[in-house]
């Protein structure tokens, strides 16, 4: 026994050159050289004035701010927890690594910090429509119904690498990276919206027999208990169950479901979407969909704190409203001129471009303003990262 191990050691030493140098460090999930593990989430707001060639990254714990220069004028911002995708309103997207992120190990979480920097741009064949980044991939949809898939692990390493381009066969452009695959909205006519969701590999080849109807897909969120995709008259919950993708169609009591996109916090189980028709609140683990009429108010966005009790929404005038999920009653209102709303497990953040501030709102305490953070440029566009 001992002799055998000695022989093994000789072999290993010969292969590795008996050296302590030049070794390959094995990296844990989420590890990036130069990043520091932190005791708590490094939450930050990434924001820009419309058209600005600069992204401001405001640390919400220390209130210190850094700037990342952009080569495009930002017209849209999308975040995936770590990377911010700044669209120029046309065919170019610049990808910024904000340097703050969280790695989910299901029963516990790790928090990291590294320097913020731009990773460069991607130029697309048609104007940008959707961006969804999660785990291994980022799927960028364009108005011609095509999806450009990026290797998100390569983004973590600092390189922008295209994996494939997928043709949805429709004028929808929505793909959600999930469970190592992509859930892609596809259709049969290039001038019509997609009508179903299928699973594909990152190479764009359809994989397995997964397929679920979804008329005119309009937004998606990756939650703990699966992916939710909003369709014209339903929300579909797709979940990996014992290595098999399963779909559950949650019919909407009121149609059409608003096309404004889900608001949620990462690693939670609830998401919400709002529009003229009210609020749709979905719970992914319970596979339930609830509709709140919201008194017929003209709402433009919603976001779920995932506490099972409340949902927040912004109306057309920029007022923030907190609703009781059960009764639909208004709990509190904050009369602001807000343009954006986002939240984490502790606070919500609302940007008010005209006043050049970002309000920190305690959504568990009647929308109390906890802090008002001064912005260095007008926060027309604002997203939260590091959550």
């Amino acid at each position: 026994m001992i002799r055998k191990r000695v022989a093994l050691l000789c072999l290993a030493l010969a292969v590795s050159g008996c050296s302590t140098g030049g070794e390959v460090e094995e990296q844990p999930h989420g590890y990036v050289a130069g990043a520091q593990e932190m005791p708590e989430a490094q939450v930050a707001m990434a924001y820009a004035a419309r058209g600005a060639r600069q992204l401001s990254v405001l640390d919400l714990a220390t209130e210190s701010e850094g700037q990342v220069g952009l080569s495009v004028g930002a017209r849209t911002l999308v975040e995936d927890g770590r990377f911010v995708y700044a669209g120029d309103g046309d065919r170019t997207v610049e990808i910024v690594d904000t340097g703050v992120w969280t790695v989910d190990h299901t029963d516990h979480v790790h928090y990291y910090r590294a320097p913020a920097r731009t990773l460069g741009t991607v130029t697309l064949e048609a104007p940008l429509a959707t961006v969804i980044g999660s785990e291994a991939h980022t799927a960028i949809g364009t108005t011609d119904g095509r999806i450009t898939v990026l290797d998100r692990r390569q983004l973590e390493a600092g390189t922008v690498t295209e994996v494939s381009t997928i043709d949805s066969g429709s004028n929808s452009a929505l793909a959600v990276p999930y469970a190592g695959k992509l859930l892609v909205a596809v259709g049969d006519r290039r001038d019509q919206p997609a009508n179903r969701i299928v699973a594909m590999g990152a190479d764009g080849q359809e994989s397995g027999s997964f397929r679920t109807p979804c008329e005119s897909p309009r937004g998606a969120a990756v939650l703990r208990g699966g992916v939710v995709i909003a369709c014209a008259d339903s929300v579909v919950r797709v979940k990996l169950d014992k290595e098999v993708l399963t779909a559950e169609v949650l019919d909407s009591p009121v149609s059409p479901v608003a096309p404004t996109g889900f608001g949620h916090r990462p690693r939670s189980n609830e998401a919400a979407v709002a529009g003229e028709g009210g609020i749709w609140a979905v719970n992914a683990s319970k596979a339930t969909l609830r509709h709140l009429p919201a008194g017929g108010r003209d709402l433009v966005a919603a976001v779920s704190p995932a506490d099972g009790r409340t949902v927040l929404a912004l109306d057309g005038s920029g007022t923030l409203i907190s609703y009781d999920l059960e009764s639909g009653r208004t709990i509190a209102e904050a009369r602001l001129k807000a343009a954006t709303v986002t939240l984490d497990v502790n606070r919500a953040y609302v940007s008010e471009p005209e006043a050049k501030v970002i309000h920190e709102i305690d959504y568990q305490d009647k929308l109390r303003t906890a802090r008002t953070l001064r912005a260095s440029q007008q926060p027309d566009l604002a997203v939260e990262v590091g959550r």
Partner: protein
Amino acid sequence: MRRLLAVLVLLAGGVTGCTVADEARIVVTTNILGDVVSRIAGDQAEVTVLMKPNADPHSFAISAREANTMQTADLVVYNGLGLEEGVLRHVESARSEGVPVVEVGAKVEPIEYREGDAAGTADPHFWTDPARVGTAVRVLADEIVAHVDGVDAAVVRERAAAYGKELSDLDAELAARFGRIPDDRRVLVTNHHVFGYLAGRYDLRVIGAVLPSGTTLASPSASDLASLVTAVQDHGVRAIFADTAQPARLAEVLAEEAGLNVRVVGLYSESLSEADGEAASYLAMMRFNAEAIIGGLSG
């Protein structure tokens, strides 16, 4: 330079490096157990500790070379009970290569977590009880003698007995000192989840509390502090033992918002410090924590 040298060694015949295998070698995962094993083994074996000072035992990772070292060791020692997620598969592959492997936590009568998401699962943090570490020392001495070729059994047992005496002295000292604190003040309000064994040994009560984070501390409301304030008021404690990035700010907020005058005391929980730090060895870590807790509860 080192790389150059390695190439030369390879050219010279490749087998030069194999003299290492004649030495008795023990690989230990955590730095706390690493210190314990080193005290037992002394110069009888080369002890390799995988986890660096001030690291997280749940998530630390090892290099390919270190993984290889495990597969060729005479003995692999790990804490187990779910602690070392990052290196567990390397432990398992060493075991499957026929390397003797000892899961220390499983051999010291582990307790289960009583509350929270993990209730009912084994608590791996047995080292907060020095008596259990004493048991671990006896187990480890037996394992070293049985599996590590070339060690002098008498020397190992003598060293283990001497270290065991230091542990029982520490245990007796802590029992006496904690015993002098009145019953109703032997309460640890904390967000650390590692002190269940310490509490069991010295008759302390652990009251878990949620600590507000950086952004909530900036402008907290009553609900942000509720869990902590309730724990402090219910038990009338003057100190909380907290794993937090901003201990001073937390104390300030508790004073301002809730009128509570408490000290926020940091403890070493799952890792030793650097060699020149306050908790460079297991015994130093235990003494540091005991002083801090006794000071906090008596203050």
